[in-house]
C-alpha cells in the first residue's frame, strides 16, 4: 500500500506545474520545471512502490485523466477544452480497462468521447465568438467553485475510505464480474425497472431538446 503523501504530491505537482507554466515568464517556467521535476520524483516513489503492471498503468492513466481535466477547467479556449476532454474520457476508459471492466471502458469511449463530446463541440463552436472568449475568472465565483469541488472530493473520499484501496475484485466474485454477459444478466433481471425508467429519462431529454430549440414546422 502506497502511503498517501507521495500519491497526493504525484497528482498535485503536475497540476501546479501546468498552472505556473500557463502564467508564463521566466519564473513561471522555472517553477513549472521544478514542480515537474518533483512530480517525476513522486512518480518514481509511487511506481517503485507498485507491485504489478496493472497498478502502474492505473497511476499513469489516472494522471492523464486528472491533468487533462485540469486543462479543461482552467483553459480559456473552449475548443481546446473539448480536445482535453477527449483525453480525460480516454484516460478514464483506460482506468476501467485496468480495473477489468472492459465493457464500461469501451462504453465510456462510445458514449462520452463519441457522443456527448460531439454535442459539446457543436455548442462550443456555435457560441465561440471572440467576445465570449475572454470571460472573467476568479473572484467570488472562483472561490465558490473551488470550495464546491473540495467538498465533493471530501464526500467521495469519505464514501470510499471504508473500502480501502484495492485494484482486484473482492474475493469470491465470479471470474468475470463485469463482462457484458454479467452486466446483461443483471440489467434485464433484477435491475429491470431502472432500465425501463432510463428510457423515460431519454425520452424527456429528447422532447426537451426539441422544445427548447424551438424548431417548429412553418406550416
Amino acid at each position, binding site marked *: 500500500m502506497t502511503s498517501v503523501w507521495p500519491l497526493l504530491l504525484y497528482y498535485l505537482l503536475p497540476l501546479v506545474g501546468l498552472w505556473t507554466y500557463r502564467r508564463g515568464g521566466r519564473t513561471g517556467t522555472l517553477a513549472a520545471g521544478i514542480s515537474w521535476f518533483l512530480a517525476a520524483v513522486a512518480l518514481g516513489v509511487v511506481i517503485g512502490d507498485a507491485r504489478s503492471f496493472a497498478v502502474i498503468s492505473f497511476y499513469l492513466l489516472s494522471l492523464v485523466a486528472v491533468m487533462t481535466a485540469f486543462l479543461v477547467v482552467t483553459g480559456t479556449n473552449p*475548443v481546446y477544452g473539448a*480536445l482535453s476532454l477527449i483525453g480525460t474520457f480516454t484516460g478514464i476508459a483506460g482506468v476501467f480497462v485496468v480495473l477489468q471492466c472492459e465493457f464500461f471502458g469501451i462504453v465510456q469511449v462510445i458514449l462520452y468521447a463519441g457522443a456527448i463530446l460531439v454535442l459539446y463541440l457543436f455548442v462550443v463552436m456555435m457560441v465561440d465568438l471572440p467576445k465570449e472568449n475572454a470571460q472573467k475568472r476568479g473572484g467570488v465565483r472562483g472561490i465558490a467553485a473551488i470550495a464546491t469541488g473540495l467538498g465533493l472530493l471530501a464526500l467521495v473520499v469519505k464514501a470510499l475510505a471504508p473500502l480501502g484501496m484495492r485494484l482486484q475484485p473482492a474475493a469470491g466474485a465470479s471470474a468475470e464480474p463485469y*463482462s*457484458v454477459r454479467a452486466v446483461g444478466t443483471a440489467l434485464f433481471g433484477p435491475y429491470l425497472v431502472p432500465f425501463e425508467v432510463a428510457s423515460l429519462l431519454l425520452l424527456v431529454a429528447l422532447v426537451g431538446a426539441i422544445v427548447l430549440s424551438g424548431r417548429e414546422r412553418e406550416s
Partner: protein
Amino acid sequence: MDLLGFVIAIVKALIVLVLMLSTIPILVWSERKLSAWMQDRVGPNRVGPAGLLQPLADVVKFLFKEEVMPQGAEKWLFVAAPVLTLVPALLAFAAIPIGDPIHLFGREVTLQLANVNVGILFVFAVGSLGAYGIVFGAWASNNKFSLLGGLRAAAQLVSYEVSLGLSIVGVLMLTGSLRLGDVVDAQAGTFFGFVPRWNLFAQPIGFLIFTVAAFAETNRAPFDLAEAEQELVAGYHTEYSSMKFALFFMAEYAHMITVSALLTCLFLGGWKVPGLEHIGLGPFLFGVVQTLAFAMKAGFVLFFFQWVRWTLPRFRYDQLMTLGWKVFFPLGVANVMLTGVLLLGSR
C-alpha cells in the same frame, strides 16, 4: 506479463502498421486505375509498371511540398488535426482478426493485434474518434468552407453511426458475443448444405444497413458531402497542403480498409470457406488459404466501394440526413425486433 508476450505484442503492432500503410498506396492506385477504366481513360501509367509506383512518387511529392499556414489559424490544432484523424483510423483495425489462431513458439497466437472481449465495440468506439480530427481541423483552418465541411461531416457521421450500431444488433443476437473471432466462428458451415452460413444470408436487412452506413461513415461517394467540391471547395481540408493533406487522405483509406475487414467479419463469414475442411489440407496450408480467402473477400468489398464511387452521383445533404433518420433508423429497429421474434420462433 512475460518477455515473449511483450515481444509478440510489439512485432504484431509493427506487422499491422506495415500492412495498413502498404495497403493504402495499392488502394490509391487501384482507385485511380478503376476510375480511369470506367471513364475510358488510361490512368497513371508512367511511374513503374502500369503506374504501380505512382502512389510512392506522390508520397515523395507530398513531402517536398510547401506547407501553408492560413492566416488566423489555430496553429497547434491545425497541425495536430491530421494526426488526430489518422491515428484512430489506423487503431480501429487493432481488434479485427484475419484468421484462426495459429501455434507459434509453443503458444497460441491470435491473428489480430488485440483479441479484446468487446472487439466490435472497440472498432466502433475508436473509429468514431476519427471525426474529431476532421472537426478540429475544420475549425482550426479559419475558413468558412472548412468549418461547414467539418460540421457536415460530424453530423453525417453521428447520424449514420446510429444506423450502423443498430445494424449489427441482429448479428450479435445470432452470435451471443462481442468478440469478432466468435462472430466469424458462428458463420462456419452451411444452411441446407449449400448456402454458406454467412450473416449476409441470415441478416440481409442488417447487411444492407451496414453497407450503406459504411459508405457514410467513411465519407465516400455517394456520401462524400463533407468534401463536396462543387459547394465547399474541398470541405474540411480546403486549407490543408503537403503531408498534412496526405494524412487526411491516408485516414480515409485506412477507414475503408477497416470497414471492409469489419464487413467481411460480420457478414461475409470472415475467413471461413464452406467445405474447406473436407479437402484435407495440412494445418499450415489450411490457415494460409483461410487468410487468403479473408483478403479476397475484403478486397472485393474495397473494389465495391470504389465501383460505387465512380458510378453513383452524390446525394443532397437533406436527402442524406432524411435517409439516415427516416429510413435506416426505423429499418434497423424493425430488424432487431424481427430477429428477436424469429429466434423465438425457431426455438
